[in-house]
């Protein structure tokens, strides 16, 4: 194993004899590109992009969030939902749906995840220009599996978590955490280039975009 390592490294070094020995290894950070592209009000752009991906979106005032969560689960007919165990309990004050808490220490069985009617989570950051929601495995977002296996994902995005473009988001995220970037529901275009939503991940993504009260 170590011999292959040395062999590959030796080949790499031999291939790079044209590179001056004193060429610095570190690149100065210049970032000549823009952080955002002036596409408009971040929340409006996000909403537009999410709709473009056929996600369901609602702008909701903070004081109505519990009602909106209850209504969304009701519309969906979701009776039992997986939730990360660090999620804000107040969000569920008005729903009768059963919550199945999940955590790294006490994970739900895969087959059980496959049977719940959906999952409710928060997010880490959302990118307006690309309509992307990023989950970082935090206590209110949970393990990667819970937002993957159920067919319905209800995600609560707070207005202050929304950034314009990709660079800002990347700077805010911690690479040590497992990240999932979601830009609309699962989709495929493999069959004669017809877009079909949902092959594996949740086929329905619903976003509650919370304006400050």
């Amino acid at each position: 194993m170590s011999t292959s390592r040395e062999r590959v490294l030796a080949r790499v070094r031999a291939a790079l004899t044209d590179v001056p020995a004193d060429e610095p290894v570190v690149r100065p950070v210049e970032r000549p590109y823009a952080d955002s592209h002036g596409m408009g009000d971040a929340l409006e752009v996000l909403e537009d992009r999410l709709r473009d991906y056929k996600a369901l979106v609602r702008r909701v005032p903070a004081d109505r969030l519990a009602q909106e969560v209850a209504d969304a689960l009701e519309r969906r007919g979701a009776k039992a939902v997986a939730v990360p165990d660090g999620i804000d309990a107040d969000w569920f004050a008005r729903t009768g749906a059963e919550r199945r808490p999940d955590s790294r220490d006490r994970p739900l069985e895969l087959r059980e995840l496959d049977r719940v009617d959906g999952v409710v989570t928060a997010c880490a950051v959302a990118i307006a220009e690309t309509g992307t929601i990023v989950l970082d495995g935090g206590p209110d977002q949970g393990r990667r599996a819970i937002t993957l296996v159920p067919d319905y994902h209800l995600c609560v995005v707070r207005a202050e978590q929304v950034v314009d473009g990709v660079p800002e988001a990347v700077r805010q995220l911690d690479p040590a955490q497992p990240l999932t970037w979601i830009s609309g529901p699962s989709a495929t275009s493999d069959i004669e280039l017809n877009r079909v939503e949902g092959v594996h991940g949740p086929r329905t993504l619903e976003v509650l975009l919370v304006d400050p009260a």
Partner: protein
Amino acid sequence: MSATFLGIPPFPEAAHEAVNDSRLRHNLRKATHTIRDKRASVVTELEDDWERLRSEGAAIKNHTLRHLDHYLEQLEASVERAGGHVHWAADAAEANAIVTRLVQATGETDVVKVKSMATQEIELNNALAEAGITAYETDLAELIVQLGDDLPSHILVPAIHLGRSQIREIFLDQMAEWGVPAPAGLTDDPRALAEAARVHLRERFLRTRTAISGANFAVADSGTLVVLESEGNGRMCLTLPETLISVVGIEKIVPTWADLEVFMQTLPRSSTGERMNPYTSTWTGVTPGDGPQEFHLVLLDNGRTDVLADTVGRQALRCIRCSACLNTCPVYERTGGHAYGSVYPGPIGAILTPQLRGMSSEVDEALPYASSLCGACYEVCPVAIDIPEVLVHLREEVAAGPGHLGEKAMMKGAEAVFGSSRALDAAQRAAGAARNLVPRHLPGMAGAWTDTRDLPDVPAESFRQWWNKHEKGQS
């Protein structure tokens, strides 16, 4: 699963067959044009920033390649610090042996796979099969290709050459043998087909404990691996199994986490013409209680260091596999991917494959001629790889080698694609339109050709205008 590119005839012959297949041409045309148009609109949306992102992407990759030894060691240290294991493979045989051993150590005989060109390049599935391990492809198109015992024909849409009724037949005939059967009344509605695949694959995801993937990027400073995808099968494979083995070419490295700012903007837009692909997963070693608890990274050379050693050809290693060059290539549009006889089709395949494999076969010698040098591939490439420059450089090498095919090969290639009467005209005009990219006198063997046939002056119209007219004239 026994399908292999071995035995595919050299480009001119393979292309000739493909050009005569009208269904293939129809599918290809529809697919490449659809993606091409989508790409153009989301690229335009970024205005001037696109060119800045493009040159920054090229600069990051160039810098990485020039210090690849440093970044490889840094990546190794970062991954191990995060709880992963790193293995080095000098060639395909070594990589296959490492992966086989790792799978055997888990005691499993079934593995799920995320679409990965590196594992196709080393023909991992065949190697695993020889060891009694079945590798299940989980990308919808790869599943179609695997069930149909076929070969992928496009980097991004591997089943681009198949129509929906063919896919239906493949599902009905083959799914039962591989697991959950297709439903009896399966129609050829894409929705129904996707649903059949969902049911078929879900069962497999929930019970398979070992997964194999590639990666789009490997971040040296953080040790993070990144996979971009659409369907969610990637997330399934990267999340549910207990063991994850990722086979990654040594050129996939970017130095810092912040570098992803660039590629997360350029790759999806270039690739599927979306502002962002539906899913991106990143993982750094293992996270206790979340996702695979054992992670192995296999760093693959397999000819990449030979490419690195060629100061002109080296730029091919910047490729981020977006497939934009395929979708814009007039030659690819007519021939499809199989004609290139390699995992990497289209313009990038024409320069990468012969460099990776060394130009010792007729197939590889013909590849640098599988182009009209029109320059459209360079124009769209998000890391600004000057594919025409490398093509000309490789032609020179072919010409200098013993028993070269030379002008005959080139004209055979052009003929196969453009039809004999227009061959010379098309090749010349296309080359002329790209004169910024191609020296006026082509060096080496091709130079002899230009000695007697001057490249025409640059026409007033752009290549694209010319091509559009040319297209209209014939359909």
